[in-house]
Structures are given as structure tokens and as C-alpha cells.
């Protein structure tokens, strides 16, 4: 008998069931899973999702700026980089490479981020109002490393794509993508640690800064 068989047999014996797991038991499990039943929803989850997203981002130490149109994103990004005395060379996803970055004084490189890059730019699948969270889904054109390796992560998010809760976000993934991609990545603020004397330090292995640019 394999380790798998032994473990499963022990589970069944200790649960007072005989023999192997039955087809009926498996189909009951699948039926339950298919119901995708939601747990109790806190009332904060019913707040206006955009307002709550902005408020929660602030608590997470993300910063937020708003622009009127997608075309204004490069200017907003440049203003943020200048204000924080950051580099104007950025590495970003192909989805945003069509914007006029040069006009805003930014050198935009459309390639995979590496350890030396200081600023990474991405957009995202959606935002979650309840917790001020960004959801990034991996694909050939949306690699996760842009949001992880550079010290600064700029993220473009459409206000129309801010949902109330994580449950809503998962539902959106199911509807629009069918299944989860390899990496489903929820980002709530810049990386942090409290491992030395429980003192919170912003900036651990991920970014020191997360700046979100909201578009309509």
C-alpha cells in the first residue's frame, strides 16, 4: 500500500467509515463545492466600494491619485515620481506601453522586471473595496514580478473595476476567465515586516511604495 492509501484508509477508519471513499461521497463533496456558498458579509462590505477602497488604501499606506482619462496616467505617474524623487526609468506591462510616456518624461521599458529595476508599472484585474486590495492575475503579458521586485509599484485601476468583496472578485474571475490563472495575487499595500521587536517597517522584500492611479 502506498502512503496515500494508508493515510486515506486511516482517515476513513478513524471517521468510522468502511472501505474506500465512495463515488457518492465524492459527488456530495463536488455538489457542495459547486454551491460556492458565501459566508456572513460584514456591513463594511456594503459601503460604496470606491470610497472605501480609497480609505482602506490610506490605512495600508498605499497612496492614491485620480485622473479623468487613461491618457493622463503618464503625467500623474511622472508627478508622483518627481514628488518622491524617484527614477523616471520604469519597467511596465505591455498593456500600458501604448500610452505616451515619453511626453511625460518617463522612459517606459516593456519587458520582465529584474532585481535592479526601481519602478514597476502594472494595471490589474480588479480592486476590492472592503480591504483596499489590488488583484493581479498572471498571464504572458501580466507577469507578477513587476509588482514585487521594484521598490516602487505603480498600479493603474479603473474605478469601474472596484468590487465590494473578495467573493465578488472571485466571481468576476470565474465569469471573465473561467478558471484561476497560475498566480492569483492579492496586494494590500507596500510590503512590510514587524519581525524585529514587533516594530512595523514598511518595505521588506517587496515594494516600499504602492501608488494607485484611479481611472474612470
Amino acid at each position, binding site marked *: 500500500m502506498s502512503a496515500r492509501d494508508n493515510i486515506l484508509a486511516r*482517515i476513513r477508519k478513524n*471517521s468510522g467509515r468502511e472501505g474506500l*471513499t465512495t463515488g457518492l461521497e465524492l459527488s456530495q463533496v463536488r455538489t*457542495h463545492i459547486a454551491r*460556492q456558498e458565501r*459566508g456572513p458579509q460584514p456591513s463594511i462590505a456594503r459601503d460604496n466600494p470606491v470610497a472605501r477602497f480609497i480609505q482602506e488604501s490610506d490605512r495600508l499606506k498605499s497612496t492614491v491619485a485620480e485622473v479623468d482619462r487613461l491618457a493622463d496616467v503618464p503625467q500623474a505617474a511622472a508627478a508622483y515620481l518627481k514628488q518622491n524623487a524617484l527614477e523616471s526609468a520604469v519597467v511596465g506591462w505591455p498593456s500600458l506601453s501604448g500610452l505616451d510616456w515619453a511626453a511625460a518624461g518617463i522612459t517606459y521599458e516593456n519587458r520582465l522586471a529584474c532585481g535592479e529595476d526601481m519602478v514597476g508599472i502594472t494595471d490589474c484585474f480588479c480592486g476590492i473595496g472592503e480591504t483596499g486590495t489590488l488583484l493581479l492575475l498572471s498571464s*504572458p503579458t501580466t507577469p507578477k514580478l513587476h509588482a514585487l521586485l521594484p521598490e516602487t509599484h505603480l498600479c493603474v485601476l479603473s474605478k469601474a473595476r472596484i468590487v465590494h468583496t473578495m*467573493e465578488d472578485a*472571485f466571481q468576476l474571475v470565474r465569469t471573465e476567465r473561467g478558471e484561476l490563472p497560475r498566480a492569483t495575487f492579492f496586494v494590500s499595500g507596500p510590503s512590510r515586516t514587524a519581525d*524585529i521587536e514587533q516594530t512595523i517597517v514598511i518595505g521588506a522584500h517587496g515594494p516600499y511604495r504602492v501608488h494607485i492611479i484611479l481611472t474612470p
Partner: protein
Amino acid sequence: MQVKSMHFKATSSMKLNDAVLQAAMKKTKGKFVDGRAAAVAEIDVWQDIRTHAASLRDRVINNLDAYLIEFERNATLRGAVVHWAETAEEANAIIVGIAQRNAAKIVTKSKSMVSEEISLNDALEAVGVEVVETDLGEYILQLAKEPPSHIVAPAVHKSKEQVADLFEAAHHRPRTLDIPSMTREAREVLRSKFLGADMGISGANFVIAETGTTLTVTNEGNADLVTTVPRIHCVVTGIEKVIPTLEDFATLIRLLPRSATGQNAANYLTLTTGLKQPGDLDGPEQMHIVLIDAGRTKLVGSDMKEMLRCIRCGACMNHCPVYQNVGGHAYGWVYPGPMGSVLTPTYVGIENAGDLPNAATFCGECQVVCPVKIPLPDLMRKWRERQFDQALRPFSERFSISVWNAFATRPALYAASTKIAARVASWWGGKDKLITWLPGLDGWTDGRDMPAPAGKTFRELYAGRLSQPTRSDRS
């Protein structure tokens, strides 16, 4: 990890006299407790969510075989290889085998208590693999060659001075006591390891049956690099970590960071499902998931099965007066505090951890804060009963309990003997009415004096009061 739980008493006394530890414990206690309270207060349906979470965990535990099979099926469909290990040794052999077959030289690891259970680092190092812990707390402990003392904040017992000494010796850079600078130093040193590793090993906070997903919850971003950069990703986790759906994850993640650190949301939740897809620029080419028993099936169907609900938030230890005073190392194995006092005897044998279920004041706070409503005091009490039944406690303790039992179950004898005892104790207290020493209990009276009783028992005083007219009678 080597079991040292049998030395709980001796280690505790040592820890109580350890000034650095005591200072560290004082500093952190308030942060965890107040942080949790504030975060929980924002959720109006907190109790409903706890109830729902407990029942969803029970649903899995009561059908664990079927949920594991469903998880395995979906993970395999996405290209992961699911391995099963009955023991720590089997798990290590599987993971060492994966490393060797792929000629892995550097392994980066994110925090995994299961890997501490099985001493995975030792097994990998024994075959010449360089293992790098990347969670800052775990990295500090790897330099110090110490085990974690807390499941969420593993280096909580270390002072910044101690960390500075370790960094200075390992990094050969100027010593600093500025915590942000120290953190940056660790980031810089570990960057090359992250980018150069052939294999990443992570734990899993949960695995999801619906999608075959494994997931990590972190703040530092280290687990996200560990699961993304190397060409091989290996997950090591316990068989009890499976949950049914993505919705269930959404429920549990409302509880976990709030209970653990008082955060509304953890910084990074990475759900990993399968392999690098055609065209992907990052992500692993192989994914291995090692599901470990190592004692867990003993809890299935037992009178302690609720323990399998545990989501490893650490709230029970943060709120435990015993843990707050002796710290995690005194417990002598991976899991400290109340959850450890239940788990350790199960996993390593009650004969090796007999003091742990007794290391409780039974204040009940652990059960109150446990997000999945595990009746921890009851479970500890069950261990105590079993120890008594199996004659595993010292003779003196069993003898005293038997004597107590003989008196307590005979009311007349009890009344007569306490009458005498109260009078003797009153006399013993002398004219200061303070008992400063009791034969056989000097360990207890060394540190404290006890006011001597009034000379009459409660029952005598109560009977006297009943025979006097009450206030309402008088009016």
C-alpha cells in the same frame, strides 16, 4: 524539530529569569492583544463569521478523505504533482529526492511550521543543498541557529541588539540598531538568493479543493518571490489544510490577519494554481505538493478533532498568560501556547510533553479569541484526564488528587476536616496573619505570602449569617 517538551518546567524557570526575553515579551504582548481587539471591533458579524468558519472546517474534517481526493484531482489537472507522506522522514525523503533529481543547489524558503516539524532544512543541508530562510524572522533564527518561538512572529523573543550582533557577524557590514536599516540590509543580502535559487519551498496556509490551489499569506513579499522565481516550486503542508471553495477562503481571510496581527488584510495573498503556462515570463516549471500526515490522522474522529480546525493564527498564544511569561521556547517544540499544548502531545506523544496540558491557568481566553472556536481548555483538560487515567502524572500529584477526591465526595468528612484546617492555618499565620511558608509548597511560597484564613470556614460563616436577621427582615 527535536522535541524538548519534557523539560517544560525547568526551561520555564530559566525563561522567567531571562531579562532579555522578559523585556521582549512585555513589549509585544500589548501590540498583539490591542491590535486584534481593534481589528475585530470593525466587523459587526464577527461571531457569525467565526461560527461559519468553524462549521466549514468541520465539514472538511468530517469528510477529509473525499476533500483531499478532490483537491488532488484538481491540482493534478493543472499540472502539479501531489505527494503523500505518512511521516516526517517520508516527507523529507520526497523533498530531498526532488532537489537531487533537479540538481538544485540553492533553495529559498518561506515560513513553514510544517517544515519545522519535520526538520526539513537539516535533511536538505545533509545532502549539500544551501537552504535560505527568507521570512525576516526565520532568517534571523537561521543565523542564530534557533527554532521559532511563535508561529506568526518566529523571532519575537530576540532583541534588536541580538539581531544586530547576528547581522554583523554574517553580513560583515557596519553594525546598526536602526530597525528599518537592518530590514533593508536583510533585503539586500537576500535579493541574490531569491534570484539565484533553483527551488522554492513554501508552506500553505490553505489548499483549495475546488481549484487545486495552494496559497500563502504574508506581509513581506518573500513567499511570493519564493513561489515565482525558481524553476521548481515545492509546497509542504499538512493534510488538514484543505478547504472547499474560494468563498471559504474569503471567509477565513477575514479572520486570519485580524486574529494574528490585528491587520484588516495581510499584504500579500498568493494563490498558486499549477505551472508556468505557455508564454508566461515567470513562474515555476514544476510544482510539487507534499501532503503530510505525521500524527494528524490520529485526531480525525477523535474527541480532540476540533484541533484540526486550527488556522495557525497565534491568537491563543498571544492571549495566554502562561505563554506571555515563559515565551515559546519553553514549550519545547514547534507549536507553543494553548494550541501547542494540545497538538504537541498528539504529535510527539504525551509521555514527552506531559507538562504542556498542565501549563494553563484555565482562564479561557484562548477559546474566546480562537477564530475557529476551538475549545482549547476542554481539549487540554482531556489530556489531563488521560494522563491521570494512564498514571502518567507524578505519584505525588496523583496521590494528592486521590486524597482530595476522598474528602471532596464526602460532605461530612469535608466539613470536619476543613474546620480543623482553617483553624490550623489561622494559627500558622501567627500575629501578622500571613502564611510565608508551607511544608512541601515552598516553590509556591518562595515568591509570595498568603493571608491566613480567618479561622472559620466559609460554610461556618455562611451558616452564621443565615441565622442572623437579614436587612429586609429588619426593615
